[in-house]
């Protein structure tokens, strides 16, 4: 016991410092952080990477995206280009089987001695290269899936966070509106709006940037923006209602933080995992809807292909050329399967409440 310790008075409630001794080196080492500190995001990613199904779907999706970006640069055919040989229309090139050439092409190759790029999936009934059409169809479906989901996310998150944070009467009215939209039969309304919008939009958008998208495609996005955000809004609102009750939000409020900053800095980051998961699961459902509408003839306008319209077109010659159905069908299933598995993986990795 050293003498520089202050002496304790007998009846004082002070702590008797004499009873304490400095920590030894070994004891100090126990306080050291052995592993690197991790963030919620890193932790989730690590869990995601350990899930073979999720990793597999990420690989499949990356391969698909690489194919649909690179293939149009390599393949010398256009998606709306009818096969021609030496500048003349090749009338014998309709409905070729995969990896075959038409007579005119064979003759041309013999005469010039040059080789021609093979028709990997054959050609369709108008003599267009089917592989490039499937590639563009996949592009259209994926783009629709992504942008529709992002649109749904933006509207849903904005609406849901306002309703959830404001609470009270505002919340009540906003949620009643949600309830009504939610109880509308969505696909029926989508069909109805697509029918009408594809008829009416054509004139309105003529000459603008949107014209290149096609009125049907635009109608699709409008419909998604009008109807599909409700699920996301409800989810975000529910999450915000629970996060809002936390002490750190109260602390931020007491020191006078503006509501918009509390929402951005404290509440939304805590809802992020829920939002990411539901966006990942929104993509396949958007692709489903798009292909369904294309199948009914309400999707993207010809000659632009989408996977649904390709499958629909292949139905006409099902007995003679079944592979024309199989290719787009397999691609749709692959995309949807990959996104579903990825979404499930994300949910397991990022939603701590569901971990078992």
């Amino acid at each position, binding site marked *: 016991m050293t003498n520089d310790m202050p002496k304790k008075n007998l009846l004082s409630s002070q702590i008797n410092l004499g009873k304490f001794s400095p920590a030894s080196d070994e004891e100090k080492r126990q306080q050291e952080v052995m592993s690197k500190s991790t963030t919620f995001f890193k932790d989730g990613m690590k869990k995601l990477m350990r899930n073979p199904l999720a990793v597999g779907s990420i690989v499949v999706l990356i391969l698909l995206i690489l194919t649909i970006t690179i293939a149009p640069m390599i393949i010398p055919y256009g998606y709306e280009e009818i096969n021609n040989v030496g500048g003349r229309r090749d009338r014998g090139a309709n409905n070729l089987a995969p990896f075959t050439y038409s007579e005119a092409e064979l003759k041309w190759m013999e005469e010039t001695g040059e080789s021609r790029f093979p028709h990997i999936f054959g050609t369709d009934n108008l003599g267009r290269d089917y592989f490039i059409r499937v590639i563009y169809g996949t592009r259209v479906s994926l783009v629709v899936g992504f942008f529709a989901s992002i649109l749904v996310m933006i509207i849903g998150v904005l609406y849901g966070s306002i309703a959830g944070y404001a609470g009270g009467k505002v919340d009540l009215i906003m949620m009643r509106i949600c309830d009504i939209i939610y109880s509308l039969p969505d696909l029926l309304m989508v069909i109805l709006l697509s029918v*009408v919008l594809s008829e009416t939009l054509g004139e309105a958008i003529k000459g603008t940037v949107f014209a290149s998208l096609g009125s049907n495609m635009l109608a699709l996005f409008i419909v998604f923006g009008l109807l599909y955000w409700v699920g996301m809004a409800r989810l975000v609102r529910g999450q915000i209602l629970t996060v809002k009750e936390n002490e750190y939000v109260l602390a931020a409020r007491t020191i006078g933080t503006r509501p918009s900053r509390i929402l951005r800095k404290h509440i939304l980051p805590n809802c992020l995992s829920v939002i990411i998961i539901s966006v990942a699961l929104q993509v396949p459902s958007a692709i489903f809807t798009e292909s369904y509408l294309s199948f009914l003839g309400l999707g993207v306008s010809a000659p632009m292909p989408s996977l649904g319209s390709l499958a629909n077109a292949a139905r006409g010659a099902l007995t003679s050329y079944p592979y024309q159905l199989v290719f787009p069908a397999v691609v749709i299933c692959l995309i949807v399967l990959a996104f579903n598995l990825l979404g499930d993986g994300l949910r397991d990795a990022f939603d701590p409440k569901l971990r078992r």
Partner: protein
Amino acid sequence: MVKYVVKRTILAVITIIIISAITFFTMYAVPGGPFDGEKALSPAVKAALEERYGLNDPIPVQYLNYMRKLIFEQDFGVGLKTGRNVLDTILTGMKVSAVLGLAAAAVAIVCGLVLGSVAALNRGKILDRIIVFFSTLATSAPSFVLATLLLLVFSITLRWVPAWSASNPNYILPVISLSMYPMAYITRLTKTSMLDALNQDYIRTARAKGVASYKVIFKHALRNALIPVVTYVGPMIAFIITGSMVVETIFSVGGLGQEFVSAITNRDYTMIMGTTIFLAILMVVANLITDIVYKIIDPRISFD
């Protein structure tokens, strides 16, 4: 309870009114009248026709007229392209579609419950893996892809099942393609809720008491696992109705779904309008019943 039922019914009625208004006004926004066909009609004839069908009145008046006829006389109007009574077309189509839809719903519920329970009871074993694999696969195939592939494989290539004909209707393939997705969904739902139920204390108590194994499963676990499945019935009916549109078209069943698709292709607006309102009412009512039944069978839910 009564308060809840009244509240939900009022909401359902409001929804139906909104749907009918949306349907009517969007259909009205389409450019071109019903009589702007390929042949130009003389102005006098056109005016007479428009007068006859009441197309000169202001739009809200037309809407009210339409709703009045619809409610009090069950008059959905006449198909613009077909000239047939819309309600008759709907009812004739429903005869086929209802059989198809109910069969698909029954198959989905029964198979889904069985597969889900089997998967839950054999958790982690090979049987569970196979069921999970197929249900994941089935939720990834859009119904039209499934339907065309089934048609291709079983009807055209293998010739096991004859294609549909009016004289010899064969429901097997349409029912399979319609029920696959809801079946897979119910399987997953049943599996998770069954696993939940099996972990409960009352199951352990029952087993400890020496209750027979089948009794534990059917009386204690399955009954509680059924509750979440009931909530899916409403959405499932909506899915089957929209799914039947493509499936019926692919197999040329000739039901309401196919009529609706051909009405869309022909831009037959009165037919689209009538069918949309009819199907929407069907879906809203299905949801209403599902919600009420759910509240009745689940005593844990409060009626607020």
